[in-house]
């Protein structure tokens, strides 16, 4: 019957293609191939990481750089496939910002087995073999934000957090740092920790709900700028701008302008270009067999109305 023929043809095809493949392993180019795989490329943060990385690659004529990412941060398996394909090409070095910190580990093992150095970017993983980690100390950032809020509300009152997707390490770390900062102030009560998936619209919705359930909340910490800006919209709609302390994280241009205008109080600044640049520099070093630093903290800074003009340049 015809269907059986179908199978035979499929098998014949498979065999032919494999045979062809076996005889044609390609030769490598002489340039160093460095590949940066981010979680996504759909926000200002990742685009700035990308431009920093490209700056580093331009500085070295012996390097070619590709920046790849799954379509969305949630497509973890797509990111794994991209990495597998790059490992197969035996690229010189990888820089990876993992979309899933546990899910990524098996493919990192494959990179190691193939002898490819891996620099972890922005989001740390529990994997002892990483060549280097380039990012910020999110926990410290969270703690600084917490301390700022503590001072701004005079050490007592209700506070709330709008956080990103559960299970993402950077988000967890910022929250942990924040909790540490307020732990020793009995006057401060953390009344709500609500997820808003790092989205602006959800951030606004969550803020509105909080204003209903906790009308006496004094300060809100959004663990990224998108959610904080959503909360800003909600406060504006309720004419509460400036009456509730609002702190974000990332220092996007929009958030900085909001601080300048007095619609937000502070953000924790990251330097994404520096992160991207440094990650690629370390990856190049590793590819050339030069020594690298195990852990590179790019650092964060608290931005308030006082110093915002520096960051807005």
């Amino acid at each position, binding site marked *: 019957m015809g269907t059986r023929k*179908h199978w035979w043809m499929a098998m014949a*095809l498979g065999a032919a293609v494999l045979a062809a*493949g*076996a005889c044609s392993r390609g030769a490598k180019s002489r340039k160093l191939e460095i590949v940066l795989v981010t979680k996504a490329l759909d926000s200002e943060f990742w685009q700035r990481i990308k431009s920093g990385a490209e700056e580093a690659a331009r500085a070295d004529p012996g390097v070619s750089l590709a920046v790849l990412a799954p379509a969305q941060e949630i*497509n*973890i398996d797509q990111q*794994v496939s991209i990495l597998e*394909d790059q490992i197969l090409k035996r690229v010189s070095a990888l820089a990876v910002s993992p979309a*899933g*910190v546990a899910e990524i580990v098996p493919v990192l093992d494959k990179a190691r087995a193939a002898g490819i150095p891996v620099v972890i970017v922005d989001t740390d993983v529990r994997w002892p073999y990483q060549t280097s980690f380039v990012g910020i100390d999110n926990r410290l950032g969270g703690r600084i934000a917490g301390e700022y809020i503590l001072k701004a509300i005079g050490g007592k009152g209700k506070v709330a957090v709008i956080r990103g997707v559960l299970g993402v390490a950077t988000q967890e770390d910022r929250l942990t740092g924040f909790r540490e900062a307020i732990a020793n102030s009995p006057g401060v009560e953390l009344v709500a920790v609500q997820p808003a998936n790092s989205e602006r619209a959800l951030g606004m919705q969550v803020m509105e709900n909080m204003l209903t359930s906790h009308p006496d909340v004094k300060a809100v910490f959004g663990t990224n700028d998108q959610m904080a800006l959503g909360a800003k919209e909600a406060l504006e709609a309720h004419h509460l701008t400036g009456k509730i302390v609002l702190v974000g994280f990332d220092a996007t241009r929009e958030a900085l302008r909001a601080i300048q205008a007095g619609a937000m109080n502070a953000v924790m600044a990251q330097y994404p270009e520096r992160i991207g640049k440094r990650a690629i520099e370390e990856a190049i070093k590793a590819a050339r067999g030069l020594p690298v630093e195990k852990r590179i903290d790019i650092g964060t800074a608290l931005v308030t109305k006082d110093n915002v003009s520096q960051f807005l340049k």
Partner: protein
Amino acid sequence: MSPAALLRRFGPLLGLLALCAVLGTLSDHFLTFDNLINVFRQSAVNALLSLGQLVVIITAGIDLSVGSILGLSCVLVALLLKAGVPPALAVLAALGIGGALGSVNGLLLTKLHLPHPFIPTLGMMNVARGLALVICGGFPISELPSSFRFWGAGSVGWIPAPVIVVVVFCVVFHVFLTRTTVGRDIYAIGGNPQAALLSGVPVDARLILVYALSGVTAAAGAIVLAGRMNSGFPLAGMGSELDSIAAVIIGGASFFGGVGTVGGTLVGALIMGVLRNGLNLMNVSAYWQTVVIGVVIVAAVWVDVVRKRAAEKGRAAVN
């Protein structure tokens, strides 16, 4: 067989061959032994989902919940393993859970008389994904036993274990659809449900079975994916329902039901896997990949339409 009939049967396969040839010339890495094995492994999860989706689409239905059932099964199997359940038992339990969730789809469709399979499976898509997130609090459950990881990451000789799983499922589904009376009933339901009912086909029972099978293949996909990633994670299979539908349609099945083969579907899944892999090797961004796959879906169906119209014309000329 006439040339036209040959073209129809092997159209998707010819498309796959042509695609391989093109990608082979564009990328030195594509036609290597390692990479082709790699493609097979990467296509395994979609191939499994597509088999279940195929059976559903043959009945003129659609299953939007396969990605979410995969996610929920992925989390549950990891929880079972963490609770110390032996891997073999956990695998069976996951398949059972997937089948049960799928049969809920079928029951909602047939017993509540919901107007279209779109509705119950859209509901299940949200419910299962939500439960997956709730159960594990959003965190992945990692560090699974190595005997379980075999199904996703292991291999026998140079053949990856996921490929073996896919081949076994393909053979079983092929025999089921073409050699059993139940398989014939399923094609009849898709061709004309009214005539099938009046010929004694227990339509409701068959539909429930069909959606249960789709749940089982989703769970099989979950086992492979969890093994591959060494973790049960709640976001597993996000959006993969659409990939599975695309593979089935590229493989020559019809949304109107009654038509579709396991071989075609497998080829459809491979076409998608090969495309993604080839574009990755050429460092094409994920956004452009999405565009290309969209074009391929429409083109595949359009070729089918053109071919059919030509066949009709040929027939009219003979008569």
